[in-house]
């Protein structure tokens, strides 16, 4: 099994895009995040769905006490207005500068090790500065099933 077999091509977050555009690209490619590039097409970070939701929809005080929360706290739920405003936000507001990367030649073990180290479930594959696509833990699992 080679890394190149599980690369999934995705869109890229470009300057001027909104959160909604990025979410759509993620959903289309079935990945949790995509790389962000600047005007010179250089990867400057990533945009992750989880990060956007964490920053905008779940307050810290709820995260800290998630295990205590009951199921009737509807007035603390995420409103439609909030969701609309989040989707309309500029994507650049949520760029994470750290974007774990691998190359097409990276061994699986190294790719998995990077994911563990960086506490992520996906990596961007970049060959000589050119973005090739994303590998994810789901893609690897899929390839494992297909390969046996």
């Amino acid at each position, binding site marked *: 099994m080679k890394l190149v077999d599980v690369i999934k091509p995705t869109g890229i977050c470009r300057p001027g895009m909104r959160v909604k555009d990025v979410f759509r690209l993620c959903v289309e490619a079935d990945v949790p995040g995509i790389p962000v590039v600047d005007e010179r097409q250089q990867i400057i970070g990533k945009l992750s769905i989880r990060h956007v939701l964490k920053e905008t929809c779940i*307050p810290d*005080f709820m995260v*800290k*006490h998630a*295990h*205590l929360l*009951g199921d009737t706290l509807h*007035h603390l739920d995420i409103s439609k207005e909030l969701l609309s405003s989040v989707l309309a936000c500029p994507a650049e507001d949520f760029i994470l500068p750290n974007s774990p990367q691998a190359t097409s030649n990276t061994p699986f073990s190294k790719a998995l090790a990077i994911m563990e180290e960086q506490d992520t479930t996906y990596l961007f594959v970049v060959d000589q500065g050119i973005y090739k696509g994303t590998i994810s833990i789901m893609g690897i699992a899929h390839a494992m099933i297909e390969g046996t």
Partner: protein
Amino acid sequence: MEHSLTIINMWISAGILLAAYVLIFTEKIHRTTAAILGAVSMTGIGMVFGFYSQEEALAAVDGNTLLLLVAMMMLVTMLRPTGGLEYLGIKLAKMARGDPRRLLVYLCLVTSLFSMVLDNVTTVLIFAPLTVLITRILNINPAPFLIGEAMLSNIGGAATLVGDPPNIMIGSASGLDFMAFIVHMGPMVVPAWIVTISLLLFLFRNQLTPLAGLENGDIDLNEERAIKDYPTLWRVTGALVLTVALFFVHHRLHLFPAYVAWIGVAVALLLSTKGPEKLLAGVEWSVLLFFAALFIIVGGVESSGLLDLIGQQLATFAADPNQLLLSALMVMWAAAVLSAIVDNIPFTITMLPIIAGLESQGAHVTPLWWALAIGVGLGGNVTHIGATANIICVAESERAQYPNSTITPMQWLRVGLPVLFNSLGVVSIVFIVFFEWFL
């Protein structure tokens, strides 16, 4: 010749102390870094000029204070993840039945009580996020609760020998025991507590009214799920109860408070299945190094003879029994005002040898110790940066995502100033009326 050399040494040591304190207070660099720089400079320059040695620098570090702090930090590190405090917080919130005024009193009371034994920062770190969650569920502004918890945590901490680092230092320098602190600080802290909570209820009266439909105060939080580790909770609580019980009698048993705290740690470790590594990771080494470095800096100034000189000047005033009350009140108000503006630890550490020196000049200093303790304890309430607990509550208010919940510096000051002047005023009256009690 020797006299002029001594004067030069005094100026040099004062210059180093001043430079270190400016670096600490301006926060241009981390306060621990600034204090270490100051301690290294004081020792090195003191050695060159012959007014301070490495042996004297080591001896200046108050081991009793630092060891007591380490032990208490370790006990807190064991207690914190068990969820016991969250359990209590939710229980009390449910007992308030949706009445914000009652909720404020309950949460502030529990914060104060825990701050008497645990450090204020830990208490607030646990209760502040829980308070935001509870107030958000009740749809009320968390700001009054956060301000109240920080202020009354500071006041609660002033009541005991182990409640606040300044008290630990004062207890160690003066030899005053745990019971003496309770008996003498209690009569000042209780009225200060009542005045503060009354003022908070008055100043926030418009924000402490429940919204229609939520009067029943249903708080859909499961406190049973808060306790993550029952066996550890019981073991650590047992060790903590033993420690506090021993604190009450440590002077009768001729045990140092630090030794008592270490008995508690030893018992907790013995009962716990976890190793000490995690506990050591919970110790705030940066804070301890900061304190140690400050002791070395002030030790250098003391060694140069400057603090003796200041003590001699003050002794003419403080040694007069007729002026003792006035001296104590001056210490109290100066400590409060300075603690409101700058970190109260450097001020306290500087005052320790001065007050201790006054005793050798024939002054009766016991009332001065109580005045210093209550002054630095109450002073931290004035500004949002007056105490670490305040800073934590302000940060929590910014994350609350409720309209007007963010506590601004001016908003804090508008509450802090009346709280300080009223609580300090009441404490001063108690001090004046029952002055003989504090002798």
